[in-house]
């Protein structure tokens, strides 16, 4: 039963082939078997999941029309889950149990999905390798000495290794798409505002977006249909009606114009295998009836610095609330403490190195005398990047790029070089800066056998076209039949 897609799992429950309890048990068994090695989960909610599964099985009729009834799902640990510890993989929230549930998670549960556990990530979603988690290392199931990508690394591994058919992640600069690419699965970052951010522990509020990680494009479409929609609790969510995204998956790519920013693709640092497979994917789409057009995104080269100015500025403010006063970690008092000393020690010990680096960067960016040169300038460049895309979308329906310039790198390889690590986001940050929807879909394997992802970016709120193209490609390429080798605790212990 493990290695089942979301669509297959829900059909299995709907037709009565498997009970929700059986689906849950299969997931839990896969976790028990593989997770000691892979480290995808920070918390497995077995009891809660099994009792909920039993309740859904008991009341089949009431749940019969819910799209995800009985299906186990994994949730990135920066999405709040009532009564379930939510840490954002940070020491400072190690004991934090929120009294509320993120809207996207609540929608999954209302649709009958069962939370099987919370997944590891880079602390506060800051990173591209999941190495910044305060708690554990997450390994790529295709090569366990390699990183799974990040920050939603745990979610990507949970899906890729068959521990759950769907995981939610969050994407601030590529945190869904890049780990999906490096783990050989599908990752979708919806349009900014398409999915409520309520209950998502904020990293950079104007960039953060919740989205699904799945085996197939059809599964991503199914999941998006459930979690999308306006939310009175998120003033930046969009009221646009939510279509059934699975309906448009016709396999037809005829008439689609796909733009390729050649300058970017041929740029420095793009792995040859990556370039080759992305080119082949474009040929496949062309054979399906799409036309491939060269386009220019002149400002895209400035996307990384722009992103790291905007994201760190917002992060420095978003993370100010972790002060040890009301909840979470507080450093123990030392003698007659001053308030300032309590703050400093709490944040010194509660945050990891990368989080502190970004808080300092962001604080600097917003400081008097630097604001205009950094934050304001970054916002101006952000506008230019958005205009680049608007101009491109006058000619084309989608923009294609690699998701990541390289396949998964080795654990520890870039940890000492933050700038090199930041460059992993070169192709993904533009979609966040411009608010556009983007998807990563598997497009082959490197000579070393590591997954490579193709990224497609669409117009605002046009996830339908994005999903249609990705699905059409997937039908031909069908990379999702390739699953990583079984990684079991027994074989590695």
């Amino acid at each position, binding site marked *: 039963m493990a290695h089942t897609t979301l669509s297959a799992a829900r059909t299995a429950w709907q037709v009565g082939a498997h009970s929700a309890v059986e689906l849950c048990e299969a997931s839990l068994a896969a976790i028990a078997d593989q997770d000691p090695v892979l480290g995808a989960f920070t918390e497995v909610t077995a009891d809660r999941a099994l009792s909920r599964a039993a309740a859904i099985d008991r009341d089949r009729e009431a749940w019969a029309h819910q799209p995800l009834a009985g299906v186990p799902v994994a949730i990135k640990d920066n999405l709040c889950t009532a009564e379930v510890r939510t840490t954002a993989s940070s020491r400072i929230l190690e004991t934090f149990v929120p009294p509320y549930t993120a809207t996207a998670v609540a929608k999954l549960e209302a649709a009958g999905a069962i939370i099987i556990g919370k997944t590891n990530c880079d602390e506060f979603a800051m990173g591209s390798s999941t190495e910044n988690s305060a708690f554990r290392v997450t390994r790529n199931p295709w090569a366990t000495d390699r990183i799974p990508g990040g920050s939603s690394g745990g979610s990507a591994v949970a899906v890729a290794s068959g521990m759950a058919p769907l995981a939610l992640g969050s994407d601030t600069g590529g945190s869904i798409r890049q780990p999906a690419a490096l783990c050989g699965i599908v990752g979708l970052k919806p349009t900014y505002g398409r999915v409520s951010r309520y209950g998502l522990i*904020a990293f950079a509020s104007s960039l953060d977006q919740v989205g699904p990680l799945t085996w197939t494009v059809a599964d991503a479409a199914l999941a998006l249909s459930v979690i999308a929609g306006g939310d009175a609790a998120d003033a930046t969510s969009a009221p646009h009606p939510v279509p059934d995204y699975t309906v448009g998956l016709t396999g037809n790519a005829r008439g689609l114009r796909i733009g390729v920013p050649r300058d970017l693709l041929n740029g420095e640092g793009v792995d040859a295998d990556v370039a080759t497979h992305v080119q082949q994917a474009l040929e496949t789409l062309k054979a399906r009836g799409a036309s491939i057009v060269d386009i220019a995104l002149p400002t895209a080269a400035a996307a990384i610095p722009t992103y790291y100015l905007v994201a760190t500025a*917002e992060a420095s403010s978003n993370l100010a609330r972790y002060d040890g006063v009301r909840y979470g970690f507080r450093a123990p008092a030392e003698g007659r403490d001053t308030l300032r000393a309590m703050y400093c020690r709490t944040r010194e010990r509660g945050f990891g190195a990368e989080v502190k680096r970004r808080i300092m960067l962001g604080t600097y960016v917003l400081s008097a005398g630097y604001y205009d040169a950094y934050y304001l300038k970054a916002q101006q460049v952000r506008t230019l990047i958005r205009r680049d895309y608007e101009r491109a979308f006058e000619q084309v329906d989608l923009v294609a790029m690699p998701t990541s310039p390289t396949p998964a790198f080795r654990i520890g390889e870039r940890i000492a070089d933050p700038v090199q690590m930041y460059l992993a986001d070169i192709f993904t940050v533009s979609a966040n800066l411009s608010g556009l929807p983007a998807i990563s879909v598997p497009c082959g394997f490197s000579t070393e056998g590591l997954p490579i992802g193709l990224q497609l970016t669409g117009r605002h709120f046009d996830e339908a076209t994005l999903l249609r193209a990705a699905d059409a490609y997937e039908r031909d390429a069908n990379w999702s039949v390739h699953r990583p080798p079984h990684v079991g605790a027994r074989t590695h212990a």
Partner: protein
Amino acid sequence: MTYEAVIGLEIHAQLQAGTKIFCGCSTVFGAPPNTHVCPVCLGFPGVLPVLNRSAVDLGIRAALALGCRINETSIFARKNYFYPDLPKGYQISQYEQPLASAGSVSFAMPDGPRRVGITRVHLEEDAGKSLHEGFPDSDRTTYVDFNRAGVPLIEIVTEPDLRSAADAAEFFSRLRAILVWLDVNDGNMDEGSLRCDANVSVRPAGTAALGTKAEVKNLNSFRFLQKALEFEIERQRALVGDGIRVVQETRLFDVSTGTTVSMRSKEEAHDYRYFPEPDLPPVRVSAERLAAVRERMIELPDARRQRFVAAFGLPEYDAAQLTQSRHSADFFEATVTAGAPAKTASNWIRGELARVLNDTGRSMADPPVSPTRLAELLRLVEAGTISGAIAKTVFEKMVVSADSAEAIVRRDGLTQIDDEGAIIALIADVLTRNTDAVAGYRAGKTATFGFLVGQVMKAAGGKANPKRVTELLKQALA
């Protein structure tokens, strides 16, 4: 050399929106600590602010009353600083694009009119409250109450147009009256609903350049504002007079000593790292919405005062007194509408009614006698059914019962005695019992006339028509 003071005020007023600005928690004052809180106003991870529309409308109403231009688009920003009573580590406020700009308030001082420019009116959330005293372990522990965190505020910033402590106090009092009048703010300075900070500098009289300013905080009554400013202006004058430069700093008014003391210097000032709040879209005020707020806008005190003079023929003084609060103005207008003569109604509201309110500790918001009831009473006086003196007695009884004036007059037999025969009989009786006074009067001690009138009225139980008594007594003594 003479120096003049230059003063600008920053006033924080809580908006009476019922709920907090970014969540649904109550804003009622005085609840047990940390009972009006939720994940949003406590700054929990992952929660988001959602703007309370009625707070925006109240802000617009206040800004319109202050003659401001309402900006079509205004933007929330984060003001970042660490403090235990600031749950998110930033305050959501408006910075570069406020709700409203460029208004003014005019008022009269004994030596002439004043006009104070309003630079801006912006929306923001209040912080919580640090409780440094009142607990057994207060020597080493500070508690925090977050009931106030997220309460909607407007900040009103004036131009540096004020020139004296007295002007500033009068302006603040005028501003308070307007905000309370409009139901924007409850005016309770003791509860911190209305707070004032002042920027003060001095310069040689007649020069245009501004001197170095000090910001004085904690001026939460008109008296404190005036005292603090008087002290601060004198302090700065003395410094400048001695050729010592004023230091730019924040100073705190110490109520117990009546002085201002340095709190932090310019170098220690926070860098608030303002930037636009990404969790909230810009506030857009459409023409329709503006029109709707305007439509619900009630007549302002100044306009109403002028109308009371023009429409009811009231003296300026009466009109000014009646329009000091909306309740008294409303009461007056309702009394007149119910048929009472305007000037009599004004006298009664400012006299008897005010006295009764004062004695019973009630307010114009909750009067013991309705305008209709008062009008009925005043109509009885006008018709001559009862005397003014008896009316006061009847009014006392109305205060403690629900009966109408007419019912009380009938029940207690208080109808005025106009009958000539009855009054002559009373006079005859009084004259026979007061022969000394009569003799005195006839000997030229006219002052005893008043005494005799009093005796007749007393014999009549106050009910005799005093005019008739005077006439008939004169005849009897002639």
